[in-house]
């Protein structure tokens, strides 16, 4: 009568298990005679963070090619094995177990973003591995795992250091600003950034006149901008993701929100596509950044890197300039490679010990890690967009558009103050 | 031991500002064949929806076999013996004809017996109604008259004491109408009280012992078929002024 009627849950579950077993044999046939050193990672190639994940992956592939051109590591070729984590933390445990147990990689590096590093840390800790983290904020604060290293230059106290530059700049202004508005998206990074900023508000003795968050799917930001304007702050600190960064900048302009200092922690303004579309509207905004084509930031090797990156970017369908993440993704694997070469070892602990005590010269400058795996000294840049005219991409390749204001040793120009003066 | 007496007292139902039933009262005796007629929109269907429990009421009382059923949910009324069929047949389309009957047997007839017994009983009912050859087809494969029969058979499976037949004959040929009438007469002989709502006058007049006429939510006439035919108010309601 009913063909499935005789089926029992047993057979069904047996089928589940059978298929799952079959899975475990997938993808293990990549053995090579040259016995390459394998580095494995999951990366956001689809989903919300893929706009950053893809360029980060390209940067690592460039490093792999650079290394292999020079004859590899320890005379062995380097192989990158990567899977798409779909920007979904739930995929991370599976992907990394596959990398470690089936693909038998020698080292893992993290995917892009705090959310994707968080589920990876327990796995790495359980197996006592060395982990290079690629751009995550305050991941290790709860675990304090000694063999974790984060290439994002947040500094020893990631949450507080993140916006430090913005507040340092604000604190030195004359006349000194009194009031501040804090606004951010309801998401992981903005919440961290706002939490850090709140601490800094206390340290610097400003008065908070607005402190609210909004859902990431907000369409119209003018009501928010208007509410902030009504609170009349001297400083507006925004922690946002790309769509809301654009929304906030436009809305601020439209409602005439003109504090003395505007910006802080806006993700997305660093992207080439956003910079070219926004054009002069960016002028005057003071925002965090990781790199800018200023003379103070020309570390050895970085120009060659960008040459290669920009040549390959179009084909890979990623950010054409690649000034934001890619050099750091490159530097992360660069450090791992140096440590392997220097110790002539593939032992996790040996490599980790070397990374912990060494200062590396990378394409993003000198990198030295502190005890919690963050940069020993924060180097989150504060830049100001200046003199942007029109929307051509070429102008962003040269100096003077994203002027570095902080930290002092990388300063490449002066703040145009107040915000409105830079806009014109 | 014949049951099935239905008393409705001052039943009122409003939809927004529209009064669909305005203080309707009726008293259907045990074992009676009762006709309910009226022009379109006169409130017939609303009345039986209120009696069967598909709609809540805004006033009045409904008593079945002396028990107040005004506030109890529809499925419990069915279990008490108030069963209706639908004007537009609503068979359980994913089930076979036989399975369609098992549902009321299991739920309404209260047996909740082993499934095999239900199936045998369902088959009996199909046989009496002449649908046994279709027992294992799905309703989608039935003709219109078979669909009507299924609707009645399913109502029978609920073991009604009072059966409300809502336009069971609309759209049928005269031979088919006779078929259905025969079934209804046979049910009534077994002691089931029947309320028939019908547009086909020939059928209602032949079937009913007593008829009530609704117009604009109010009863305008009540009596034997002969009395109704001669009633001028009824004529007016049907033909207009």
């Amino acid at each position, binding site marked *: 009568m009913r063909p499935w009627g005789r089926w029992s849950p047993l057979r069904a579950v047996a089928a589940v298990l059978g298929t799952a077993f079959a899975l475990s044999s997938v993808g293990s046939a990549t053995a090579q005679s040259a016995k390459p050193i394998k580095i494995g990672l999951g990366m956001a190639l*689809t989903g919300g963070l893929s706009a950053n994940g*893809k360029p980060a992956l390209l940067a690592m592939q460039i490093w792999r090619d650079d290394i292999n051109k020079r004859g590899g590591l320890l005379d062995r070729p380097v192989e990158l094995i990567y899977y798409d984590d779909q920007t979904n933390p739930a995929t991370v445990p599976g992907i990394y177990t596959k990398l470690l147990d089936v693909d038998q990689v020698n080292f893992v590096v993290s995917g892009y973003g705090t959310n994707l590093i968080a589920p990876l840390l327990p796995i790495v800790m359980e197996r006592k591995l060395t982990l290079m983290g690629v751009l995550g904020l305050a991941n290790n604060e709860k675990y304090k795992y000694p063999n974790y290293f984060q290439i994002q230059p947040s500094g020893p106290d990631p949450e507080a250091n993140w916006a430090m530059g913005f507040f340092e700049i604000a604190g030195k202004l004359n006349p000194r600003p009194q009031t501040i508005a804090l606004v951010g998206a309801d998401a992981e990074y903005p919440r961290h950034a706002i939490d850090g900023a709140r601490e800094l508000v206390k340290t610097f003795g400003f008065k908070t006149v607005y402190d609210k968050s909004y859902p990431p799917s907000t369409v119209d930001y003018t009501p928010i901008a*208007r509410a902030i304007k*009504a*609170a009349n702050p001297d400083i507006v600190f925004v922690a946002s993701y790309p769509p809301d960064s654009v929304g906030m900048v436009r809305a601020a302009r439209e409602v005439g929100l003109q504090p003395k200092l505007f910006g802080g922690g806006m993700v997305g303004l660093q992207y080439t596509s956003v910079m070219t579309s926004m054009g002069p509207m960016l002028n005057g905004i003071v925002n965090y950044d990781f790199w800018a084509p200023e003379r103070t930031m020309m570390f050895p090797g970085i120009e060659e890197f960008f040459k290669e990156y920009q040549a390959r970017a179009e084909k890979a369908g990623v950010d054409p300039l690649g000034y934001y993440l890619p050099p750091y993704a490159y530097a992360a694997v660069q450090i791992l490679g140096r440590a392997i070469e220097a110790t002539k070892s593939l032992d996790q602990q040996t490599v980790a010990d070397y990374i912990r005590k060494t200062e590396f010269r990378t394409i993003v400058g000198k990198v030295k890690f502190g005890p919690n795996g963050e940069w020993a000294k924060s180097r989150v840049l504060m830049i100001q967009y200046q003199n942007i005219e029109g*929307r051509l991409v070429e102008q962003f390749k040269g100096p003077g558009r994203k002027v570095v204001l902080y930290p002092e040793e990388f300063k490449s120009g002066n703040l145009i103050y107040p915000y409105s003066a830079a806009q014109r | 031991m014949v049951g099935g007496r239905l008393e409705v007292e001052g039943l009122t139902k409003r939809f927004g500002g529209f009064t669909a039933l305005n203080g309707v009262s009726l008293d259907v005796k045990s074992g009676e064949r009762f006709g309910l007629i009226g022009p379109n929109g006169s409130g017939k269907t609303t009345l039986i929806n209120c009696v069967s429990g598909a709609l809540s009421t805004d006033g009045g009382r409904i008593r079945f076999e002396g028990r107040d059923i005004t506030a109890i949910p529809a499925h419990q009324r069915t279990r008490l013996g108030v069963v209706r069929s639908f004007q537009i047949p609503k068979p359980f389309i994913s089930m076979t004809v036989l399975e369609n009957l098992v549902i009321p047997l299991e739920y309404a007839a209260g047996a909740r017996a082993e499934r095999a017994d239900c199936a045998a009983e369902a088959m009996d009912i199909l046989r009496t109604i002449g649908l046994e050859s279709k027992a294992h087809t799905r309703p989608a494969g039935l003709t219109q008259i078979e669909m009507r029969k299924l609707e009645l058979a399913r109502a029978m499976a609920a073991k009604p004491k009072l059966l409300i037949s809502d336009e069971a004959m609309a759209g049928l040929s005269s031979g088919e109408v006779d078929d259905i009438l025969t079934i209804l007469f046979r049910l009534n002989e077994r002691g089931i009280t029947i309320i028939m709502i019908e547009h086909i006058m020939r059928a209602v007049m032949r079937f009913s012992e007593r008829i009530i006429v609704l117009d604009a939510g109010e009863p305008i006439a009540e009596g034997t078929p002969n009395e109704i035919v001669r009633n001028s108010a009824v004529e007016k309601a049907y033909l207009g002024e």
Partner: protein
Amino acid sequence: MFSWDLLANAVVAGVLLGGFYAAVSLGVSLTFGLLDVVNIAHPAFVILGSYAAYAMNSSFGLDPILTGMLLTPLFYVLGAAVYQVYYASFERRGEESLRGLVFFFGLLFIIEVSLSLTYGVDYRLVEAPYIGKSIELGGVGVAVRLLVPFAVGLAMTLALHLFLSRTFYGRAIKAVSQDRLALRLMGANPVRIKTIAFGIGIAAASLSGALLVTIAPVVPSTDRDYIGRVFAIAVLGGLGSIGGTLVAAIILGVAESLMATFFGPSWSLAVSFGILLLALAVRPTGLFGR
């Protein structure tokens, strides 16, 4: 922090946003409300429209909204084709709703992925002279970036309303869901009528996509933010009621805007959906439902 000035501005901003929401939801009101086709891929077509406008804007510098209008015939054809597939696979066989839903879910994925394969996953924005400008209207500042979509949304609503009530095809579309007999008397073929209506729905989606990209940057997955909103608006407005859609869209827009201005913007979306839940519980047919 309350002030009348702020209130006026918040209401105006909300009304403007509502006009845009109406534009995005009109297609759903038409296809879901009048044809009973649960096109959950509607927002994906909206984003497709956004990318079309973006492509023309970045390559030829065309105005995004103008492009959106010019491209509507193309999307009309696309919509008509999609409906033909839908009809042949589901409606003709009956029992369409649940599987039809999955069909459109699949379509949503296909559109999303095709876009990210073609354009990548970068945020896309357009340029137009009115972006970033605002005008003063009696003490209330109005962002032109929102004013233009509002006007277009209003015009679309009006046009659709007139079309449905004044033209032969419009009346046939209204009849197709409610009154089969009238449709037959009009001598219209229901499948043809539904094809036309669906095509119009998708064309409306594409034009509203052009409005969207004018207001905010888009990525291929932006559509997911709109699935809930558009259906909420169509339902809240009363299915098939074009005027109701506009009113519901404005209610949602104003609610979001007021929340964002005076309370926590954090709660604005939840409040909108709370309104929907409440409305559904109290009046399941929506504000202007039949």
